[in-house]
């Protein structure tokens, strides 16, 4: 069982899925309407509680993005724009017509890129702490630069609760090699897609009007990664969406408030 290397996902199955020649790691759990969960820069790690809560209402599909975790990556797939096309192929491969699409942080950017290309490909879109819009205006930064923070500092700032174990260098160095390899691949992929322009596609804002499905954007009340100005930019760029704030949550809302997040997603999808 592949879930042996990701203990927190033991309630479901982790298997390999061939998408047009690229082998993708796919986690699946639960029963109900289909839901595609797109993880953030830290991979599937730390998503277990939220996925388990979602799996009580939905059939959850949670892939590792190409290059992350245990997923392969076509050599020229190196922009989030490319990931948008990749996920349309993946939805075809799974015969999913219009699942609920949930993305967190970097994964919300991936969700937005996917649905700007085929706007009817979801029943509902939920973006938790989305990235993807320009993160700065010349000298004025609106999103913390994760590449300029130490591993420990970044680990602390990502949520209000405890940091992921890999945020501590000693714990990281002592990890079994398969887990360590996943984290190093997550780091590498975050850099591949997000180094420059930093965590954004300058063209995304001009395409967001195409998203026609009911959309919900959630911000953690205590998010220490994105500023109020950046949240305002998202509100302007996606006026058709509902914007809400989740109490007692940082950037990784799914880690700080997994039950509340899952309940809000289920209510939004049922409305």
């Amino acid at each position, binding site marked *: 069982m592949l879930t042996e290397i990701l203990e927190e996902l033991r309630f479901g199955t982790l298997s390999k899925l061939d998408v047009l020649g690229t082998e993708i790691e796919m986690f699946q759990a639960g029963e109900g309407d289909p839901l595609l969960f797109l993880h953030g820069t830290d991979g599937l790690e730390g998503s277990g509680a939220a996925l388990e809560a979602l799996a009580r209402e939905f059939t959850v599909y949670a892939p590792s993005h190409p290059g992350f975790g245990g997923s392969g990556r076509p050599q020229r797939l*190196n922009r989030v724009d490319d990931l948008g096309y990749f996920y349309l192929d993946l939805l075809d491969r799974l015969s999913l017509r219009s699942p609920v699409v949930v993305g967190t942080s970097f994964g919300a950017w991936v969700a937005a890129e996917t649905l700007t290309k085929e706007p009817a490909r979801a029943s509902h879109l939920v973006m938790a702490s989305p990235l993807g819009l320009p993160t700065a205006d010349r000298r004025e930064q609106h999103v913390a630069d994760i*590449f*300029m*923070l*130490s*591993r420990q*500092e970044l680990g602390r700032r990502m949520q209000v609760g405890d940091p992921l174990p890999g945020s501590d260098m000693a714990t*990281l*160095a002592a990890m079994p*090699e398969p887990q*360590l*390899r996943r984290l*190093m*691949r997550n*780091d*590498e992929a*975050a*850099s*591949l897609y997000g*180094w*420059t322009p930093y965590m954004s596609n300058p063209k995304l804002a001009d395409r967001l009007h195409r998203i026609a499905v009911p959309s919900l954007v959630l911000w953690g009340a205590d998010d220490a990664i994105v500023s109020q100005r950046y949240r305002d930019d998202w509100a302007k760029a996606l006026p058709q969406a509902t914007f809400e704030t989740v109490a007692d949550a940082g950037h990784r809302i799914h880690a700080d408030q997994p039950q509340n997040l899952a309940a809000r997603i289920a209510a939004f999808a049922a409305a």
Partner: protein
Amino acid sequence: MKIWQFTEQAYYPAFQVPGAMRVTLPQHHCEPEQAGRLLNRYLDEYMLADELGLNIMVNEHHAAATCMSTSCMTTLAILARQTSKARLLALGIPLANRSNPLRVAEEIAMVDCISGGRLEVGFVKGAAYELFMSNRQPTGFMDRFWEAHDLIIEALTNQGDNFTWEGEHFHYRTASMWPRPIQQPHPPLWMTASSASSARQYGRRGDVCATFLSGAVASSVFAGYREAYVEAHGHQPSQDKLAYLALVACADDRETAFKRAEAMKSYFTTAARLDPQFRNPLGFNPVEANIRMLQAGANAMRPRMRNGQPLPVDGSIEEYMDAGLFFVGTPDDVYEQLVRFHAETGGFGNLLMMAQAGELDHKDTVDNLTLVAREVAPRLAELPDMPLEVRYEAVG
């Protein structure tokens, strides 16, 4: 053995500022008139090296008080004009951080012409933290390095028509070198290695291979190079294909030499002053290399002393000498230490010598350079090209 004078051209007044010396050190600590005086002073010392019959090496870094040379070729453009005999080595140009490799080729050709064909060129991976200033993509770093390398070599060696280049990373409608370099097919190429496996690829290619401040590891770097060179070329490389970089503090008496060494030691301690997240940007090293580094621990990459212990960053001069990073004493002492290290590493033909480092002042640097050039260099030039045991085997 040939000797090359090298200094990082530090802005050492900033060493007193607490905290990091690279990337995050606020630029307001740089007083530009003082920077200008220091840069001119280091150029004067390079010109003295030329007069003394030594060769010259320059490097570059960015956003660092430890090194004000922000472009090898800018420094060498000055020295190409102001020196007359010295070979001029850029070691090196951080290729994968450059956005325009054709411009690199143009600068090489221009400096080679101005210097009358005295340029030697090193292409380096460069320090990881440079990525924060170049902002080039960390992933695919070495793919980009090698494409830039290939393009530059094509441009320098091209004796036919102008050409176009449509690569994975670089695209040019026309590559046309005005001027072309004097040295054909191209100026001598240098690479840097800190392990036998990286040295092997340079041995196969026949480039000059330098290793920096690696102490005992230099033996395995050179052995890897020789082995691959023999496989690819069918004969031993000459020693001028191998180079070692270290600090040298020489004086008429030991007491003065050790005082000079103490003034130079801040080179080592300031180099270590860098916040941890800048040492290894995400995506810079391959995943498997990152796994090995984490498992090996922080001390794995430190040079070792003769007792096998890692050399502490704030170690004594004697400990730095023991590890083979520092050669200190009278001309006789320095000569003997270098002969011993030369024999222990199997021989190398180039000493990349930091006769100025850290806070060593102009007067001491001039005396240091002069003593090495007059009293050590002539004897080192007589060192046999092959290590002794190899010569005896050949005779027997």
